[in-house]
């Protein structure tokens, strides 16, 4: 198991390094000079030259890349051009707020999706299963920004139950903080909940047809024990993979949902950086996001290995 963990950790480091090269390359090779981006298209050549000098844009690309990466390893993520502040604290603050949003949504998706999926599989063909199948079809097909708009229209504009947009720090009181989180978290969860519950149902049905479940039932084991001791742990394996995939979708959802609800997280910071062509901030934010995604995939792989002895032993051998 420890060689497996070590190999996967090395994999994460390689992925993050390769991604850093990719991000740097796209930002620096595609047309669109950073200095012109800052100064506007009517900048004088002298002003552009001065700024390029100041930002070190005349140095060879490998040196610029190395400076960027070395800064990152020392905890310095570069300087936001538009806000003229270090990008690191900006990103970390935003990341904390995004983590609360995405973390709450992920807990709802994982626990709710598995519970609903198992329920649907064990009640195959019942009314509740049919209603859920239909709902899943619709929920998967509705874009999260449209849910967000519907939620704002209904709960904020018409009913005035919850604030439409914005964020309140916990210092403003627990109620204000939570009330700003409710709509974004629900919108973020709803599509993924449908996805996870649908695939958990499929995995569970597959397992319930297997011979070891037949065997367990044949020897008179109680249905509850068959379900939770034999069927569910095996159905969890594909579900973990799905949760890892959905984490990527969740990151995309966070970008969109934070924009709609004007929630000051990492997604909105990235969109801000794009709109204002703040390339250092964009580069740093994207590298942080990729690192988190790689770590989430690592966690999924390790969870998979912990539940699946075949991988554990093959990796050790």
């Amino acid at each position, binding site marked *: 198991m420890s060689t497996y963990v070590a190999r996967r950790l090395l994999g994460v480091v390689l992925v993050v390094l390769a*991604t850093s090269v990719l991000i740097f390359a796209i930002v620096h090779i595609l047309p669109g000079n950073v200095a012109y981006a800052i100064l506007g298209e009517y900048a004088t050549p002298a002003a552009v030259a001065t700024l390029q000098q100041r930002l070190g844009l005349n140095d060879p690309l490998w040196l610029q890349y190395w400076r960027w990466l070395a800064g990152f390893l020392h905890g310095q993520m570069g300087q936001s051009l538009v806000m003229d502040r270090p990008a690191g604290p900006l990103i970390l603050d935003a990341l904390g707020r995004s983590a609360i949003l995405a973390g709450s949504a992920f807990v709802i998706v994982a626990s709710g999706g598995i519970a609903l999926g198992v329920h649907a599989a064990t009640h195959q063909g019942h009314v509740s299963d049919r209603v859920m199948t239909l709902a899943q*079809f619709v929920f998967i097909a*509705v874009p999260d920004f*449209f849910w967000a*708009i519907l939620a704002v229209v209904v709960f904020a504009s018409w009913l005035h139950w919850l604030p439409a947009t914005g964020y309140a720090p916990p210092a403003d009181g627990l109620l204000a903080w939570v009330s700003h989180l409710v709509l974004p978290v629900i919108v973020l969860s709803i599509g993924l909940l449908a996805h996870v519950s649908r695939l958990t149902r499929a995995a569970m049905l597959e397992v319930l047809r297997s011979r070891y479940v037949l065997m367990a039932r044949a020897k008179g084991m109680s249905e509850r024990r068959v379900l939770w001791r034999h069927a569910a742990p095996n159905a969890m394996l594909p579900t973990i993979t799905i949760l890892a995939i959905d984490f990527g979708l969740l*990151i995309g959802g966070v970008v969109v949902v934070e924009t709609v609800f004007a929630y000051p997280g990492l997604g909105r910071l990235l*969109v801000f950086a*794009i709109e204002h062509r703040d390339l250092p901030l964009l580069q740093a934010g994207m590298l942080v996001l990729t690192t988190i*995604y790689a770590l989430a995939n690592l966690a999924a792989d390790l969870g998979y290995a912990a539940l699946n002895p075949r991988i554990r032993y093959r990796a050790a051998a």
Partner: protein
Amino acid sequence: MDRGAVPAASGTAIMRRRILGSRGGNSALLFGGLALAALATAALVGLWYTPYAPDAFAVHLRLAAPSLAHPFGTDEFGRDVLSRVLAGAHLSLAIGFGAMLVSLALGVPLGLLAAFDRGWVSAAIMRGADLMISLPPILLGLLILAVTPPNLGKTILAVGLVYVPILVRLSRAVALGLLEEDFVQAARARGEGAVSILAREILPNAWPPIIVECGLRVTFAILLGASLSFLGLGPQPPSSEWGLMIAESREFLAQAPWMGLAPGLCLCALLVAVNVAGEGLRARLDPSHA
């Protein structure tokens, strides 16, 4: 016609019978396909005819509620929302299916090549696919569209690139299985070249699972494309791409909810149609999922 083509042709014939033939009804494929055809027809009509000009201002009709003259109401410039929805319909379809074509055109040849070549070419292709899969899907799109000015073509490219590694892996796996088949061995024994074997023996037999995958991915491609253009990274105003229309409606949600609801509901209808048709296609082509 050489001998090697015979099994390939019969395989294609079987697939054709499965899709077009009367082997059992498939209501999902039928209804999904019909709905999709209706929406595609509306999109085609919208290219040439709309009740009003989609970009004609009418200041006295700002934010008018739905009525007989304007079934979907008007927006903040008095533009007819129905006309704008119709005129923008082809964009969502173009992004979804265009992106799929991009991933097919890049992913399938690379996947087949990776299956055929067992040396460093294969290793390079598969490691590249691994790397792309380990990026969050929206990131690549954001990165490409952030650095250069966004437009329809770039959105299609950005969405298409996301699904390239998935198609590389899939077509490689399918081709690896087919490479062991007798008719491929026969073609090899006849001394046919790699390109000929890939194009004439492997590809005609590899496409059913690839088409199934594409059918299911189109939904996500349309969603991702609409999300990007919602963020302002797709077709630019005054275009009436649906994601963009929804983004523009945000300021007026309280007074004029129809501005966002009309394109939003149309987008949902399109996504449900594509999703149902994709599932139907899978049930038809992949009996293990029926």
